[in-house]
């Protein structure tokens, strides 16, 4: 009982604050912005994917009305969400819980990415090392057939580098 009283009194205080702040009589009107803020965390029960705040169907309007009633009764945001998830199951929540079986949803892809990243890092290291052991003693820095930079103008070097990156193999001369 004490908890509820505290919630109600804090709500009243908040209301007074809001009224004072915006200079509008919010008491008669449902606070749409707060309802929408709560509804954003819930799913539309009929049309998959959309959240309750954005959905324009009749059912969703009724659910938003229900949120309005709960808010009027002094429920906190979290209490409203709990109310809905107890009544309709966890599938009403936009963000699935990060616990139980659903934890797999959140964790598994990252395990996969980390594993792939780790494997890639190892593979790249081996790849690079094997090359170095093979290449020791070789003096040619660039692969044969590629023009060696001769010009002293760094701008020309740059354009040649561009050409070489593109695998064009031609020099600057061709326009």
């Amino acid at each position, binding site marked *: 009982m004490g908890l509820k009283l505290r919630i109600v009194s804090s709500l009243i205080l908040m209301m007074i604050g809001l009224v004072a702040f915006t200079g509008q009589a919010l008491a008669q*009107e449902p606070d*749409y*912005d707060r309802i*929408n803020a709560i509804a954003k965390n819930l*799913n539309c029960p009929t*049309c*998959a*994917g*959309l*959240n309750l705040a*954005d*959905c*324009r169907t009749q059912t969703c*309007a009724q659910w938003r009305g229900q949120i309005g009633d709960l808010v009027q009764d002094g429920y906190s945001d979290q209490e409203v969400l709990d109310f809905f998830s107890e009544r309709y*199951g*966890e*599938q*009403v*929540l*936009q*963000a*699935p819980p990060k616990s139980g*079986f*659903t934890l797999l*949803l*959140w964790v*598994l*892809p*990252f395990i*996969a*990415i980390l594993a*792939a*990243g780790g494997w*890639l890092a190892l593979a*790249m*290291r081996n*790849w*690079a090392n*094997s*090359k170095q052991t*093979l290449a020791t003693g070789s003096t040619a820095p660039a692969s044969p057939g590629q023009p060696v930079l001769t010009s002293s*103008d760094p*701008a*020309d070097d*740059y*354009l040649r*580098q*561009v*050409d*070489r*990156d*593109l*695998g064009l193999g031609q020099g*600057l001369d061709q*326009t």
Partner: protein
Amino acid sequence: MPNIGYVALTLALGLAVYAAVVSVVGAQRRLPELIISARNAAFGVTGLVTLAVIIIEYLLITGHYQTKYVAEVSNRAAPLFFRITALWGGQDGSLLFWSWLMSIFAALVLFKKWGSMRIMMPYVVAVTQITLAFFIGLVVFVANPFEQLAFFPADGSGLNPLLRHFGMIIHPPILYIGFVSFVIPYAFAIAALVTRQSGDLWIRTTRRWSLTAWLFLSLGLMLGGWWAYDVLGWGGYWGWDPVENASLIPWLVATPFLHSVMMHENRGMLKRWNMALIILTFSLVIEGTFLTRSGVVSSVHTFAQSAIGPLFLGFIVCMFGVSLYLFVTRWDDLNSDNELDSLVSRESAFLLNNLIFLGLAVIVWWGTHYPMFSEALVGDRIVVGPPFFEQTTAPLWAIIVLLMGVAPLVPWRQASLKRLGDSLLWPAAAGLVTMALLYIVVGIKIFGALLGLGLCGFTLAVTLIEYWRGVSARHRSRGESYPVALKRLVARNRRRYGGYLIHIGVILVAIGIIGSRFYQVETQQNLAIGESMTISSEFIGTYELTYRGLREGASPDDRIITEGILDVSFNGRPAGQIIPVREFFIVQQQPMTIPDKRSTLADDLYVILGGWEGTGETATFKAYINPLINWLWIGGFVFIFGTMIAAWPNPQETGQRVASKAKVRGATVPAK
């Protein structure tokens, strides 16, 4: 008439199967006449499917409502334009449309590449025709658009109201073209595997096809977002809906493919990997189509549930199985020509790019399919909504933007850390200055937004400096004026500078997303006539909206249009009117909430009419401020433009081709 269409499709199915079988037999036994016959059969398939499309269009336009499909997606009130586009307004018709597009691509590639690709071509025919046969088979046996009703309905029920929007009319065909055209690189990859061609011929041959497919896929994604923003009236453009994801996932695999093929072309590396990526891309295209059409995941886009699911699954398994078998048996043919020279190199940057993109693909795929697994394994059918996708992918998107800035500065083979550091200095400074200014002057305090915009500044600086270096090098060494230098630089290295333009597009898109995701403001009010509501963003300013009443708009027969009129003032100055609309479709008993917008480069004021009491004494409006959102669309244009530059045929190449053709035709063709 409908019977002719059905017979044409049945013949097309037979012919496609014939083409596939005969081309393989011809290639194995080296019988050129069989291969020619297969080619002609493939052209025949295209002709027959085209005939079927013409007939269904005829039925749609003339309003032949005894045909079930026509009755479902069209009605007497529909204007000609919507009658024509109703071809892809429902399951059966859109599958036919899909098959038709694929048959056109199959014919086009035969037409263009027949002469130059003798060895691979029979298998290209086989792969495209088998895929085509599957889709035509679906149309013939499961989703027949020519099915007749036992009675004669007086009128059809009309096109789904959601689809009556220009964006939605062109979004499906564009997306389909993107999807379908990936069959060409896939077919060439498979042909290269079968014929043991380890070179990059298949990649070079299909480079422009892949880029074009990717272009259409990107355009399709963008149009989908634009349509959602323009019509659905929830203030956003991307809802992480399973069907949206189904088109994003192939894009997330095709994008690293387009990057890592450069490793194959330039360095003879990653041959297996590229092969795997294109196989995966096309498999995901088919899987995405399956997801959209089978009803295994619920989505606003889903077509009616049908028997298509199991067939699709069977096809995917076969396709993937055969690809995998070929891939594994050809493993040794695809050895790399070169080793990795250094951990600090363009090669490494590309590998990292591949890792991140595939990571994104894995996350999105997993989140999209999770409800299915969850239901099957523990019986919970949970909904995986935007919060999951946003929280999990955000860090990876940030890494992508960062890589986009670093990778162009890292040379192939081996980079010296010192030189890399030098070239990173200015861009990094630009990024940091961006962040500092945004924090101090603008007042951006959210860390994610600040970091994201800082990365955008960094990468934008890198890309612009790359342009500048190229242009100024030409200016100095050739004395060309700057505009000429820019034009020639891009013309000569279209792939590189087109690619950079795509990067700039991506950065602009990212800026739009960051602005609208982090700083969207919304409010909802119930107003009596003459009353006002305000909405303000600390970065944009304050809008005041004054309700002036409702009026009935010019309504066509099939719907009632109600307009809410609001006077807008911005920071105290009058700024015109904004008129959000509620359309009520009488036949479908379906309301549509069409927003109205006031767009500037800084933001959109986006207002919808939620509802009203009586004749409009009071009405409820929901208003949003979406900061920077228009950069998303501008970035989209830049992105598409860049892709077109990169994919445009080389004038030299085409010139040579024309010249050689003229030669072949001989002396009878006088030279110009």
